[in-house]
């Protein structure tokens, strides 16, 4: 039998069976709605511009870690900027701190009342006295002991102070929160808002005596 006739005979014999079989395959399969939803979601995710950054579990973990670290960093920065004292804003720099009283519109704008140390310091001499209607500054000296005492209106109190290597803490002085620290010249200082004015006392005297002096500060006129 010539080859062409054989091919024709083979075609005639198999073609109907082939067409029947192919018909079954050509019939379109209908996927479930859930499958379609998942596929659509996958395609949408694939089309996102950041897909390559999060397309594996490892990358997703790295991204979460980055976000957590950034959030932690921001928190640390905020902690530093946050004021931890109730009556003062204290910005601490490398070698000093800027102390600012919390704004108080009801506080006197001039020294209407005068406060002084009532602890017995009669054996000290006044080495410096300076006052105006907004502030009062007295330095007492005995031998190598110096006591710095000042009273300021809240509006005028705007100092920078030596806090290098010092830890600023708080303590109660007659019901008022005082900030206190010992500086790198071994002078301890207490600063508090007595409701009307800012009182500051500092000295190289024994710290416990200084605290007693601070607690003795009273209105004298």
């Amino acid at each position, binding site marked *: 039998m010539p080859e062409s006739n054989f091919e024709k005979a083979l075609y005639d014999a198999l073609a109907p069976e082939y067409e029947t079989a192919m018909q079954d395959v050509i019939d379109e399969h209908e996927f479930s709605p859930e499958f379609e939803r998942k596929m659509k979601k996958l395609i949408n995710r694939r089309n996102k511009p950041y897909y390559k950054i999060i397309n594996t579990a490892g990358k997703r973990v*790295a991204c979460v870690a980055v976000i957590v*670290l950034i959030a932690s*960093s921001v928190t640390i920065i905020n902690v530093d900027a946050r004021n931890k004292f109730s009556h003062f804003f204290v910005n*601490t720099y*490398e070698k*000093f701190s800027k102390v600012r009283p919390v704004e108080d519109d009801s506080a006197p704008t001039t020294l209407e009342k005068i406060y002084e140390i009532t602890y017995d310091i009669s054996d000290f001499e006044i080495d410096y006295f300076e006052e*105006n209607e907004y502030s009062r*500054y007295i330095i007492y000296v005995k031998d190598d002991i110096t006591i710095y005492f000042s009273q300021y209106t809240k509006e005028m109190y*705007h100092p*920078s102070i030596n806090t290098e290597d010092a830890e600023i803490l708080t303590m109660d002085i007659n019901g008022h929160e005082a900030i206190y620290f010992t500086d790198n010249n071994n002078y301890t200082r207490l600063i508090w808002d007595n409701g009307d004015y800012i009182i500051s006392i500092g000295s190289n005297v024994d710290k416990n005596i200084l605290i007693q002096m601070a607690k003795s500060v009273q209105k004298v006129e």
Partner: protein
Amino acid sequence: MIKKVASLLCAVILSTSFAVGNIASAAVISPDAPAYSYAYDCISELSISGTTATCKSSVIGYSDKTTKIVINQTLQKKNSSGDWEYVYSWYDTIYNYKGSLTNTKSSLSSGTYRLKTVATVYAGTEHETITEYSNEKTI
């Protein structure tokens, strides 16, 4: 490549976090960080009555260290772009560990003012320079 970038980013942020943490626990590094080794207090006071400003700069050192204080007071006025302009200045040298400088300037025009105090505080031949600003006052 992406993984390398993510790892690098993590490393940078981790090191930054530790650095910031250390700064937060110690202190913020000031750009002009004066030492305050010889100055106990430095306060600028500005009060204004009518059109006259009273400027007071108090500089107090440590009695056992500070030998001389040079005080430079400058009254400044805020211009329309928010920068501070020179109005007037005063200068004094105090051969002691404490002192203050008070001056007045009259006939000021309306605006917002502040007092800038620059104090050079000496301990023998050593010295440090500190700068302190008053509160702002508006006429």
